[in-house]
C-alpha cells in the first residue's frame, strides 16, 4: 500500500513487468514438463506421484495467482475475502473426505 499509484504507470516499470511476465510464462512451461516427467517416475507407490503432481500444480497455480493476477501487490481487502473462500473450500474438501472416516468405510480403503 506504500506504493504511489503512479509508480506502476512509468514506462520503465511496465517494461520490467513485460519481461517478468515472459520469464514466469517460461517457468510455468518448465514446471509443466517437470510435472509430466515426474508422473512417469516410479516413486514406489502411485499416491506419491499424485502428491508430487498436486504440489507442483499448486506451486504453478500460486505463480499464476501471485504474478499474473498480481495478487502479490494487491490490496488487503481482496486477501480478506479470498481467505474466507479458501477456508470454505478446504472445509468442503475436508468434510466430504471425513465422510469416509467412519467404521463403515475405513476397512479396506485406508
Amino acid at each position: 500500500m506504500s506504493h504511489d499509484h503512479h509508480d506502476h504507470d512509468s514506462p520503465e516499470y511496465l517494461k520490467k513487468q513485460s519481461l517478468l511476465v515472459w520469464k514466469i510464462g517460461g517457468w510455468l512451461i518448465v514446471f509443466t514438463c517437470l510435472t509430466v516427467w515426474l508422473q512417469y517416475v516410479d516413486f514406489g507407490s502411485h499416491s506419491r506421484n499424485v502428491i508430487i503432481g498436486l504440489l507442483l500444480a499448486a506451486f504453478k497455480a500460486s505463480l499464476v495467482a501471485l504474478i499474473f493476477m498480481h495478487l502479490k501487490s494487491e490490496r488487503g481487502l481482496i486477501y480478506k475475502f479470498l481467505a474466507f473462500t479458501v477456508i470454505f473450500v478446504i472445509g468442503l474438501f475436508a468434510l466430504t473426505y471425513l465422510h469416509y472416516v467412519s467404521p463403515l468405510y475405513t476397512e479396506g480403503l485406508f
Partner: protein
Amino acid sequence: MSATAATPDDLSHSDHAHEHPKQSFLWKYIFSTDHKIIGLQYGITSLLFLLVGFFLMMVMRWSIAFPGKPLPLIGTIIGDNWAPGGVVSPDLYNMFGAMHGTIMVFLGVVPLGFAAFGNYVVPLQIGAVDMAFPKLNAWSFWLFLIGGVMMLASFFMPTGSAQVGWTNYSPLATTVQYLDVKNIFFTGQTQWLLSMIFIISSSLLGAVNFVTTILNVRCRGMTWMRMPFFVWAMLVTGFLLLLAFPPLEVAAILQLFDRVFGSSFFLPTGLVEGGRHLDIAGGGSPLLYQHLFWFLGHPEVYVLILPAISIVAEIIPCHVRRPLWGHKTMIYAVLVLGFLSFIVWAHHMYLTGMGTVVSTFFQITTVLISVPSVILLTCLMITLWGGSIRFNSAMLFACAFLPMFGIGGLTGLPLAFNMIDLYLHDTYYVIGHFHYVVAPGSLFALFAGIYHWYPKMAGRFMNETLGRIHFWPSLVFMNLLFGPMMIQGMAGFHRRWYDGGMAFEETTKSFLWMNELMSFAAWGLALAQIPFIFNVFYSIKHGKKVTSDNPWQATTMEWDTPTPPGHGNFLHEPVAYRQPYEYSVTGAEEDYQPQFLPDGAKPEDKLTHAGH
C-alpha cells in the same frame, strides 16, 4: 466522477430523472438499470411467486385434511390426469410439495428479502447513486425471471413438474421421469435443474453487485461502523450467496449430467427402478449430492433470515425512538453467524449414517451457531426496553417477529442433537420448526419492511386500519397453522404423507383432528392477505400523503432522499456524519440526529420533491 470531489456542477446534475422526459415506459420501468426500479421489479415478482407457492400449499392442505374428497372448484380445473374426479392424487401432492418449497425459498423469500429490499434500500442507506454495476443488476433480475418462468412452465410438461421435494435428492430425482419419456429435456425434473441454474447465476451476479457496492461505493463519512445493521446483514448475506451457491450449482450440473448424459455421479451400483436394472455404470454416491446440496442449503437458511432480522433491526429503533442496543455486538454476531453457517450443513444428514465423527463435529457447530442468533434476538428485545413505542403496522409485524422467530429458533435446538434428530427427522416437527422461522419469522419482517419503506417508495402511507386487519388474523392463523405441527411431529407424523396420516389411522387417529384445524388456519391465512394486497394497490393513489421526506423521523441515509427518490437518488452529495441510530440524544433539541445532517443542523420536516 468521484463522490469525494463534488462540485456545483454535480449538484445541477443530480435530478437526472427530470431531464430525460423522452425515456419511454419500456426503458424506464421494464428494462431499467436503476436499482430502485429493479428492487420494485424483484419485489412484485417475488410477491407473485409467494402467492403461487401459497396456492400450492392450500391445495396440499385440502388433501391432508380431507383425503379422498374432491377438491371444490379447483379440483375439476386441474385435469383428470392429476386430480381424477377432482380428488388430489398423490402425484399431484408430490408435485405441489416439491414446487411449494422451491418457489417459496428460491423464488419468493430470498428475492424479496435480499434482492428487493436490498436493491431498494442498500444504495440509499450507504449514500450511493446506484449499485456498482447497474447493467449487471438488470441482468440478474432477468435471469431470475427466466428461471422463475421456466420453473412455472414445468407444470405444463407431459410429466408434470418436479416431484421429489425441494431438496431434489438423488437417486430418486434422477430416476423419476427418466425411463419412459420421449425427451429427457422436457420433463419437470430436468426443467427444475435448468431453471435452478438460471436462478443461481442470477443470485451470483446479484451477490457480486451487492458486496462490491457496499465495499466500494459508500458515500463520504460512511465508515464501516457507521453502516446501519441492515447493510451489514446484506454484506454477510451477499457473501453467503456468493460462496454457498456454487456448490449447489455443481450439484445441479452433475445431476443434469446424470439425467441427460446418463452418468452416475449420484447413482450407486446396481440401482433398480421399476423392476429393471438401470442402464447405468453406477459407482456414484447419493450422499455426494446431499453434501453439495446442504453446503448451500444451510447458509441459505441464513439468507432467508438475515434480511428479515436486519429489517426488524431498522424498524425497531426508529419506532421505539431508542438507539439499536449493541449495534457493534450485533455486527460481530452477524459476521460469526455467517462464518459458522458454512460449517453446519451436515446436520441435515444425521440420518444418512455418514459416520459418528462427522455427526459429532456438526452437532457441536450447530449448537454453537445458536449463540450469535440469540445475541441478535436479545439485542433487539433490549432495544424495546423503556422506549416510547409507536404501534403502527410496521412495528406490529416487527414486534411479532421477535417471539415467532424465537419459537422457530428454540424448536430447532433439539434437532441439533443427533440422537433426538433421528426420531424427529422428516416429521412435521421439522416442518413446524422451519416454518416458524420462515413464515411468521421472515415473512412478518418482510411485511414490516413493506409497511416501513412504502412511504419512501410511493410518497404515501399504507392504510393503518387495513394493516391491522392484515396483522391480527395473520398472527393468529400462523400459530394455529404451525403450532399443531410440533405436536403431530412428536407423535411421529411423517412430512410426506399426502393423506395426512389417514392410512395409519389406528395409530394416528387421536391427532387427525389437527389436520382440519391447520388446514382451515391456512385458508384463513390466505383470506388475511387480501387486505394487504388491496392495501398495496389502494395506497398508491389513495393513501395518506407524506408531508416530509423523513416521515418516521428516522436517522438513516435513505430518508435524506426526495420522495420518491429520482434517478441518482440524492439532491446533494450525501455525507454520513455520525452513527446510524442516534435517537433520544441527550441535550439535542429533537429526539433524533439523522446520520446525514452535520452537527448543529436541525432536521427539517419538508418535502423536497413531492407529487410526481
